[in-house]
Structures are given as C-alpha cells and as structure tokens.
C-alpha cells in the first residue's frame, strides 16, 4: 500500500465527516415529532380481541398535542396518530367524532369499506353508508405485499353545527357521534391511515392542506406487532 503524507488528514476527514453526519442524523431524528403509540387494550372476555378508542376534535387542545394545543392549536386533529395493535387479533375500534363537517368531495368516502361484516355502527345503529355530512374519515391503507393487505374506510358523520358551542376549548365539545367497527389483523406489518375528508385549511390546498398534510394531525401509522 502506497503511503501518503496526507493519510492522517484523510482518515481524520472520514472520521470527522462521519461524526458530522451522525450528529446531523441525531439532530434530524430529534426534530422529528414522536408520539407515544396508543396501545390496543386486550379484551378480558374474548380471545384474540382488543379494543381501541380514538376521537376527532375540531381543534388541537385535546389529544396528543397537549393542553396548549402544540404549534397549531386551531388545526383539527385525531386524539392519537400512532397506534400499536397485536398480530392476528380482532380489533374493536370506537371513534368519538366531535367535529362539524360538510359534503364530501368524493362520494366513495361515504361508504364503510373493509370492516368485519362490511358495516359499522353509528350511535348504535348499523350503517354501511352515510348520507349527509361527514366530519372526517378514518381510511387505512397499505403497501401491497408488506403483510396482510388491509383497506378500510370509515365515514365519521358530522356533528350538527347547531350542537356546537360558540367557544371551543377543553371540555367544551358537544356530544360526539360514536362510531364502532372491527377489523382483523394479520402478521406483523405497518399501515398508514389518514382522513379523506378535506378538513384542512389553506385556500390553496382545497382543504387538503395544513392539518391534512402534516404528520400528527389527520394521519398516522398503525403498527401490527
């Protein structure tokens, strides 16, 4: 091996460069907002079953953003965005919908798709299709081939605007629309879910901007372990 007087500098350069990279990586990872995942609660009565409770809020003063509302207290949000569920389990989901809504842009999202039985219950009533206004959806999708293929969409009916108090804040939400459904997981996999109703802000985003296109509000990850 031919030696060079500068070999020391070169090796130092590689090591320091690697160090800078590691530092940058660490900084980026720290800047990434992390949320503790919501755990699915094992059922005490039924085998291979667990239950989850989620909620959708008209602002960020509840849920994962803390009582201060995080950087965008006026953005709509889900209560939790990262969810962990066990493998090969039936997941019973309850979503409490506290927000108003409107007519959806795409009628496909008025349907209940992909749940066990193909239906959900809204305030106790069995439903396969919502007419009228929805506030949000819970739409789960996957990369085909990365575990059991799941495609689930739940329309969440809108709270009547007349039920909403003028001033919003903690404890000031109206009675929610309660939606319940079940689905069954396969082996270990990662799924993404997001809302498909344009409830975000921004004139330019057609309602798909801001909360709808930022991590931690209207989209999240469901991890099957």
């Amino acid at each position, binding site marked *: 091996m031919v030696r060079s007087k500068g070999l020391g500098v070169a090796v130092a350069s590689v090591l320091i460069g690697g160090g800078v990279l590691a530092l940058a990586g660490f900084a980026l990872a720290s800047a990434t907002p992390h949320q503790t995942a919501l755990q699915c609660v094992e059922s005490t009565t039924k085998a291979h079953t667990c239950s989850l409770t989620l909620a959708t809020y008209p602002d960020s003063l509840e849920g994962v953003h803390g009582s201060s509302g995080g950087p965008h207290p006026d953005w709509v949000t889900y209560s939790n965005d990262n969810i962990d569920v066990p493998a090969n389990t039936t997941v019973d989901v309850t979503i409490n919908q506290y927000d108003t809504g409107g007519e959806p842009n*795409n009628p*496909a999202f008025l349907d209940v798709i992909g749940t066990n039985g193909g239906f959900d219950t809204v305030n106790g009533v069995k439903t*396969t*299709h919502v007419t009228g206004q929805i506030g949000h959806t819970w739409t789960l999708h996957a990369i085909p081939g990365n575990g059991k293929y799941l495609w689930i969409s739940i329309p969440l009916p809108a709270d009547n605007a007349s039920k909403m108090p003028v001033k919003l804040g903690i404890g000031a939400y109206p009675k929610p629309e309660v939606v319940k459904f079940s689905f069954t997981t396969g082996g270990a996999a990662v799924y*993404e879910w*997001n809302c498909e109703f344009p409830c975000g802000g921004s004139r330019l985003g057609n309602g*798909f901007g801001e909360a709808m*296109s930022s*991590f931690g509000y209207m989209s999240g990850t469901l991890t099957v372990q």
Partner: protein
Amino acid sequence: MATSSKSSLRLFFWTWGILTVVFVLIGIFIPHRYMPGVMSNDANLALTTTILFTICAAPVAAGVYAGAIHILKHHRYRGDDVPPAAPPIRENTKLLVTWLTASTVLTVFVLVWGLGALAAENSTSGNPLVVDVTGQQWVWTFSYPGTQVVSNELYVPDNREVEFRVTSEDVTHGFWVVNFGVQVDANPGVWTTIHTTPDKLGTIEIRCEQFCGLNHAFMDAIGHVVTPKQFSAWLASQPARV
C-alpha cells in the same frame, strides 16, 4: 508506445465483440428477471423495448469501453517523467463519417421503433371500457360510468380495452398501473386519459409515481383482471352508491 500494432488492434476488436455479447446477454435476461409481471399489451411493449434498446446500445457501449481498455493497455505512458509528444492526429475523416453515419442510423432505427410503438399504443378499438380514476391524498378510488359503482379496488375484464380517465381532488398525483405499463398524471380540474388492453388474469398493482406530499409512498392500490363474466358479476354485486 504510440502506435497501434496489428495484434493490439485485433485485441481491441475481440474485446469489443466479447463485451457486446455480454451486454446483449444482460439485455436479454435482466429485464425479464426484474421487470414486473406483464399483463397488458403496453407492458409487453415496455419489456420488449427495454430488451431491444439494451441490445442496440450494446455495441456502442462495448466499443467505447474496448477503446478505453485498449488505451489503458497500449497507450499508457509508463515512465516517470513528462511523456513525449504523441502523433498529432487532428482529423480522421473516415472515422468521423463512419461514426456519424452509424450513430445516425442507430438513432433513426430506435426512433422508428419508438414512433411505431407509440402509434400502436395510441390506436384504440373505439369501444373501450371507461373507468374513472380519482386520486386524492393519499388513496385511489375507481368509479365505473354508466353504473353507480365506486370502489377502492380496480376490477377490469380481460381482453377488452380499458380507458382510464384520471383526475385529482387536490394536488398532482401519478396514476400508474404497474402491470399494464401505463401511467398518466392526475391533475385537479382536468381529466387525463390513458388506455391499454389487459391480456392476462391476475392481481395488479397501482402506485402513485408523482410526489404528492406526506403519504405519497403509501398511495398504493390493488386491482384484479378477471374474466368478463366475473367482471359483470362483480359490478352487479356492488351496492349502488350515489
């Protein structure tokens, strides 16, 4: 050493030949091994074109590489000091004309093939099955005009031309049916179209290939190519959505 003796030139031509064969073999085997399952005439065309272009490029790449190898072997100055001047060859008209002619012929061939393939792709049977595709962040939904079916999985019948009319609800997405070898962008406010004819039964994958924000990487959908009978049955079984 500055001259190229006969034996070294012979070596050059042999290297050129061997490398050409190697590249042709790569062209024949790699696309088959790696490209996704072909399930339509357009996907077939994409695969064939990949193979053909690799074969066409093989002698060109091999020639340049053989030239470089020849130079490294025979024209490398191995002394310690400054190399002496080499023969000041400024022009070789014969070589230039040959090169320009050959590259033009190859380009025209590739062009004619491409234009022919494009024309074949653009030809339509006149009676396609129309499927409306809507992309919105970050899922695809499919609806079938003339029926009231809206689905999150794409069903198409075998051996019948299908025309996709694609639009978006928000930003630009890229509607790509991987196994059909066709894609077109989904833009808000306009409809774009692409058509193809599926020719094999099975499952197909749809991916978004235009960066569309947060969950672009997860904007996949699946579909099925089924027999016409199964297709009608599926359409009938779907609840009518408004």
